[in-house]
């Protein structure tokens, strides 16, 4: 009775995960979808706590510990998620993803430990003399279980270490780091991980016979190998993410997200648990596709992102070009910029990461309202990968109550630029870089961009002339149509607002 209720609870949870994911891909239904999945998760968790029975049919125990852990996790998680600033959300997602990966790795460690007890159990049986017939049946599933444990350990650890590095990179604590031959070193590490895992799996069958003959426990040797494997997987996770540029972190986080999904699914195999399996594989598959879609939005291949050629080549070309041509840019004052915008018919705002960093979305909305009052048509041109995550700008502007229909997606915006008088670029760089269209040697060549040059005037707000995250020079800044308006986005916007109010 209880076990069928548990099975039904897991079924319900699986369905909510599928529905939730489906609804999350539709802006109108997304919020509901997220909540439905959350309800399913709560059902699955409490059903497990109260209804789960192990092989011997006894209930779980240690309730006190389980609830203390649940409460700690809930409090910390909810507070952290509530308090985090809108701009820091991507790194928060990465951090939580890392926690999931670590959880999967820990489960694998404990289950590996249990295997040892299992063998101890076999030895006892052997002494009793009923070993031979039972071992043949038993080692099969055991070897499969070991593969699953190792897979969970490796994937979980890589995901954990990688996510922590991605988190550190996004909040600026960890800098890009690469050494010569790192790719080869990484490949070597990966082969070492696979080699060790295969060795452990193939040699495992021998242990049972050894255990029978030998009173000293040969298991310790395997245990040491297991922990070496764990350490290498962590190292691999670190080195895997370390050389990848900051701008590519969303893609990496999405990829690690699907890794954690697969690690969770390994748990599904271990406990014969369908909810873990469905949830994990679903996220693994959807996450992989999402990663590819994100790459496509930037017109890059996943391979390209992972090999990290982006940062490396960019530095070379960026440094070279900058000094070759006598690049002169024009500066403009806030007063002048405000004047130009107020007396134009149509202004298009191109927001970028700089806007998010400066927390200038409210000031931006205010400027938009002011200009609209003055009879200027104001719209926003949103590049799909502006900011550090796809959709980052939509989220940010929505926070400032910018109306949804003022946000134009890239294709629409590109059609409207030719009828636009002034384009105000706020802290965006690579997404308006004409090199993506004109310079085949550029690392961002082929990426669709916002063609702001079609407009009559372009005003670019940046903090300095420093290149953007891709590390490449932007020729847009040196075009005759372009004027530079230096300063923090928020300060600049406030100055603009002041001037326009007094006009």
């Amino acid at each position, binding site marked *: 009775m209880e076990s069928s209720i548990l099975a039904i609870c897991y079924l319900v949870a699986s369905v909510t995960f*599928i529905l939730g994911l489906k609804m999350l891909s539709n802006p109108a239904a997304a919020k509901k979808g997220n909540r439905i999945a959350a309800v399913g998760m709560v059902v699955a968790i409490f059903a497990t706590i109260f209804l789960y029975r192990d092989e011997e049919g006894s209930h779980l125990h240690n309730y006190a510990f389980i609830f203390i852990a649940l409460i700690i996790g809930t409090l910390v998680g909810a507070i952290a998620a509530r308090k985090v600033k809108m701009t820091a*959300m991507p790194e928060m997602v990465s951090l939580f993803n890392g926690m999931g990966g670590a*959880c999967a790795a820990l489960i694998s460690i404990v289950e590996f430990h249990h295997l040892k007890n299992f063998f101890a159990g076999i030895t006892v049986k052997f002494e009793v003399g009923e070993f031979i017939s039972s071992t043949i049946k038993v080692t099969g599933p055991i070897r499969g279980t070991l593969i699953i444990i190792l897979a969970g350990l490796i994937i979980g650890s890589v995901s954990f270490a990688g996510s922590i590095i991605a988190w550190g990179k996004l909040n600026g604590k960890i800098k890009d780091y690469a050494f010569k031959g790192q790719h080869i070193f990484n490949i070597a590490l990966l082969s070492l991980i696979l080699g060790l895992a295969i060795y452990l799996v193939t040699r495992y069958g021998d242990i049972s016979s050894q255990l029978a003959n030998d009173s000293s426990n040969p298991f310790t040797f395997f245990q040491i190998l297991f922990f070496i494997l764990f350490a290498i997987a962590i190292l691999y996770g670190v080195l895997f993410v370390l050389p990848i540029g900051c701008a590519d972190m969303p893609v990496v986080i999405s990829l690690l997200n699907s890794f*954690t999904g697969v690690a969770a699914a390994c748990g599904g195999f271990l406990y014969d648990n369908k909810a873990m399996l469905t949830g994990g594989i679903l996220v693994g598959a959807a996450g992989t596709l999402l990663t590819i879609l*994100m790459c496509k939005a930037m017109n890059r291949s996943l391979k390209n992102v992972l090999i990290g050629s982006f940062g490396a080549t960019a530095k070379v070309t960026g440094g070279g070009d900058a000094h070759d041509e006598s690049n002169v840019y024009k500066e403009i004052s806030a007063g002048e910029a405000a004047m130009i915008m107020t007396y134009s018919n149509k202004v298009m705002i191109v927001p970028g990461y700089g806007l998010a960093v400066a927390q200038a979305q409210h000031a931006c909305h205010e400027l938009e309202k002011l200009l609209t009052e003055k009879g200027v048509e104001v719209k926003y041109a949103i590049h799909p990968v502006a900011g550090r995550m796809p959709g980052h700008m939509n989220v940010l502007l*929505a926070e400032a109550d910018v109306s*949804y229909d003022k946000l134009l997606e890239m294709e629409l915006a590109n059609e409207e630029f030719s009828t636009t008088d002034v384009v105000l670029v706020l802290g965006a760089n690579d997404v308006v870089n004409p090199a993506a269209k004109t310079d085949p040697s550029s690392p961002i060549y082929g990426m669709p961009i916002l063609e702001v040059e079609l407009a009559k005037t372009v005003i670019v707000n940046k903090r300095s002339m420093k290149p953007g995250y891709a590390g490449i020079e932007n020729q847009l800044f040196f075009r005759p149509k372009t004027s530079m308006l230096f300063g923090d986005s928020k300060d600049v916007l406030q100055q603009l607002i002041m001037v326009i109010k007094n006009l």
Partner: protein
Amino acid sequence: MESILNWIDVHQQMIYIVILMIFLGIEVIGHVPSVMHTPLMSGANAIHGVVIIGAIIVMGKAGEHDYLSLILGFLAVVLGTLNVVGGFVVTDRMLEMFKKKK
């Protein structure tokens, strides 16, 4: 080799689920607009928090003196809960921003 085949035989049903879920996962989010990439990733992040079920089982099965399982299990439950709760709350906050206001 035989043991692997044996394992596959035992877990047949699970393997079917895996294959079906791979196709379903791809199908379900196939037409996601780029605006929703981040919230979707965040939501998926929360969903793979189901791994917490494994952590709870580890914790609940641990014997009184099995300190390794108790300590690691406890840690795993905390981390898993962080993943689940943090994941859903962050996603919810993100989606708050998509609400149409009139």
